[in-house]
């Protein structure tokens, strides 16, 4: 407490001392409701980087008073508390006495109202203002906007800003512009070549554009720039291909995740479960409910933990509902695949409508922080974390499923029961229990898939329908009841879809995939991995 007081005192004295400065006076006018318009005009005219943070806060409508000091909010921490940055005279993160960032709820801050008209005064200096924005994305945008600038003072400003730059992406974007401007202004051939090299080496977003523009000019080393530009383009195309493959992998993983449960239920139990997609929906809604329950009913602040615990819970909930379905409906339909298709279709109608009346409409789940954004493998190759997570999850689940089915007693029982129910019973297996368990497991897998799907899309009652036909195709193409087949065909269809999408539009890609599968079935009518030898005959 004492320390706090002293700190406050020190801060206050600093502010009081600086108040003699006219800039400080304007700032204080802005903060304390007098002559705001005039003060802002003055600050804009001065173009003093020291005030940029403050002006930025005005522009972003994030200017607050905290302990009588101008502050703005930074990173959000939890549901309602933020990091706080002081704005003037110093722009820095406020810390508490332990040196930890200070977190404050938004209610503890007093909003400084600036009218829209006043905010519009900033338009003139916005480009350079944003150079000093605390958000890297805005800085990047600001660098971009200086592209066509030839005003020397702006270049200086750019250099100043780059000197302070900490974010690598923003730094690259800034350098991109700087080198480009310098390249275009220089008259010396060797210097030009050096800048060309720097541009290419830096490889910002605009580098190919600048280089090819330069290549069109009659300036020295124009051809050289052209070569560099096309080499960058080639590199970029190559990265695009990698990105495409990654997209295919991620789509394939999703398909596998859905098809796996389907394959177990359908391939091994002879049930075409048209309601499988609805278990996916149930898994997604479970995730949603857990989040709502904790954050809105129990008022616990949101943490990423909620998503982690929803994973097993969505397995459980979807599985239990699957169990219920098995008891009520599917039990009567073993070994009648076509009837099971129709009955479960009816069930899926009911489930969708139930979800609709329970949850009403479009909902979505908050993506955990550790899964937002992406892994920047190289400047132009960003692999989103949520997709990486899904790929990893799929791999893990495939592994667990494999172990469960082929290395445990229950797996053996499942395989036995699904191939010959009566004989398994005669061998002493409780077939009802095993069948129910199979269905539980299959539906549970769909539930996990649903939980994972919340990372990508929204949660809607008919979300299950989106992928269901594709997943059936995966199962059929892979060969019924074969995990390996499901994996290979899931990945195959994922890759092919993405590759074809690069050439055609999504729809035509899909039609092509289907034609391809039909042709494929011409010589592999029982899927990729049919059973061989005597087993094949029936």
């Amino acid at each position, binding site marked *: 407490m004492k320390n706090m007081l002293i700190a406050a005192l020190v801060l206050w004295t600093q502010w009081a001392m600086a108040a003699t400065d006219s800039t400080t006076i304007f700032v204080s006018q802005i903060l304390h409701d007098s002559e705001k318009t005039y003060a802002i005009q003055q600050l804009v005219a001065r173009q003093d980087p020291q005030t940029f943070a403050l002006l930025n806060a005005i522009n972003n409508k994030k200017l607050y008073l905290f302990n009588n000091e101008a502050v703005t909010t930074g990173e959000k921490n939890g549901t309602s508390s933020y990091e706080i940055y002081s704005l003037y005279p110093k722009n820095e993160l406020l810390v508490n006495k332990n040196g930890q960032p200070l977190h404050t709820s938004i209610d503890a801050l007093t909003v400084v109202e600036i009218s829209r008209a006043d905010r519009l005064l900033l338009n003139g200096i916005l480009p350079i203002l944003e150079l000093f924005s605390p958000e890297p994305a805005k800085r990047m945008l600001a660098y971009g906007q200086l592209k066509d600038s030839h005003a020397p003072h702006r270049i200086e400003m750019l250099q100043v800003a780059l000197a302070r730059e900490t974010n690598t992406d923003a730094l690259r974007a800034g350098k991109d512009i700087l080198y480009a401007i310098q390249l275009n202004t220089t008259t010396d051939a060797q210097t030009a070549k050096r800048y060309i090299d720097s541009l290419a080496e830096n490889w910002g977003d605009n580098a190919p554009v600048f280089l090819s523009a330069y290549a069109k000019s009659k300036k020295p080393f124009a051809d050289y720039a052209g070569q560099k530009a096309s080499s960058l383009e080639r590199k970029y195309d190559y990265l695009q291909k990698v990105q495409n493959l990654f997209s295919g992998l991620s789509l394939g993983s999703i398909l596998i995740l859905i098809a796996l449960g389907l394959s177990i239920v*359908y391939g091994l139990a002879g049930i*075409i479960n*048209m309601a499988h997609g609805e278990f996916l929906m149930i898994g997604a809604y479970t995730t949603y409910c857990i989040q709502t329950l904790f954050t809105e009913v129990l008022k616990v602040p949101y943490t990423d933990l909620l998503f982690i615990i929803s994973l097993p819970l969505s397995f459980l909930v979807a599985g239990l509902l699957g169990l219920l379905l098995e008891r009520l*409906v599917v039990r*009567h*339909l073993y070994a*009648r*695949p*076509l*009837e099971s*298709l*129709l*009955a479960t*279709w*009816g*069930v899926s*109608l*009911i489930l*969708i*409508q*139930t979800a609709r*009346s329970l949850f009403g409409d479009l909902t979505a789940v908050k993506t955990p922080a550790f899964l937002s954004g992406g892994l920047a493998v190289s400047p132009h190759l960003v692999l989103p974390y949520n997709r990486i997570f899904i790929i990893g999850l799929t791999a893990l689940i495939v592994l667990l499923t494999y172990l469960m089915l082929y290395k445990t007693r229950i797996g053996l029982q499942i395989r036995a029961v699904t191939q010959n129910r009566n004989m398994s019973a005669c061998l002493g297996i409780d077939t009802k229990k095993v069948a129910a368990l199979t269905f539980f497991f299959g539906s549970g897998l769909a539930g996990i898939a649903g939980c994972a799907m919340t990372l990508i899309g929204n949660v809607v009652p008919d979300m299950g*329908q989106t992928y269901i*036909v*594709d997943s*059936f*195709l995966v*199962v*059929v193409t892979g060969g*019924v009841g074969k995990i390996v087949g499901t994996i290979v065909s899931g990945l195959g269809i994922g890759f092919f879809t993405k590759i074809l999408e690069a050439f055609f539009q999504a*729809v*035509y890609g*899909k*039609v092509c995939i*289907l034609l391809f*599968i*039909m*042709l494929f*079935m*011409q*010589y592999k*009518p*029982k899927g990729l991995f049919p059973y061989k030898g005597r087993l094949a005959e029936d």
Partner: protein
Amino acid sequence: MEKKIYYLLFIAFFALLLPAGHLMGWVSINTISLWGRYFCFAIAALGIDLIWGYTGILSMCQAFFFCLGSYGIAMHMLLKTSGSALPEFMVWNKVESLPFFWVPFQSFGLTLVLCLVIPSLLAFVIGYVLFRSRIKGVYMAIITQALALAMWLLFLRNETGLGGTNGLTDFKTLLGLPLSNTYVKLGLYLMSLLLLCVAYFACYQITHSKFGKVLQAIRDSESRVSFTAYKVMDYKLAVFVVAALLAAIGGMLYAPQTGIITPGRMDVKASVEMVMWVALGGRGKLKGAVAGALLVNFLYSICTSLFPDSWLYILGFLFVITVLFFDKGFVGLMDNLTKRKEPCY
């Protein structure tokens, strides 16, 4: 003999009594058109019963063939309605001249021929590819379902030149007769009824001929049929084409009575629903297919008005319960109720 009387009564009721009721002012034209549309569905359902009920091939793309018929006739009507101008949707789609595949549909005769030929031809090609590689059972169901999905997506695209999601709508005349005219509606209704009767009779003949027995034999044991020197593929193909034809005929009558045809009629759901009619009515029995199509659609119409919030539950439970407990459908259920129980082993 008694049986025949009821068929005659059925026809008499719908062919005479209902129109008469309309002329007397008891039955609105809307009800008449409604039943006319149900008859179109029933025609398609007969096809499904042939291929699924009798031959045991679950085809989940019948709605696609249904729509091909509908689209054909709709294209013709739309061209007649818009006269020399381009159909409206092409205008906002930035299409400047009539696409080549629209041109033949300017003639009614050609339209009729194409509406029948295109679905049969497609069914032939699809059937040839699928049956050649001996895809059957669940594989057949899934692949045809995926096919329906792909076609649906294709028809949804505006580039396809068939009106995209909006489909084709706002037809005014057929053969120069205004579609809004009550008597034209009545005529279409009677036409549908007539064709339903013809289709029923034809299917009856087919299923009671040796051809029909071969179909059932294929359902029971395909390999035995081959070893008995029948070309299984020919038979399957024939019945697949016949089913597609029936669906297309149903579709052709459907479009003018409904006034719109959209890809929504051919999505995955639509095909499964069509199969559902037959399942609910009683697969493997022609009257089951007709009964299923008529009753389910009737329930759909009634329930969406009477119980707008809960009809899906009602129909959903009906589906599930029928499939679970009355696997022979309405007809089977009534057989059980009315006939003395006999060994079913």
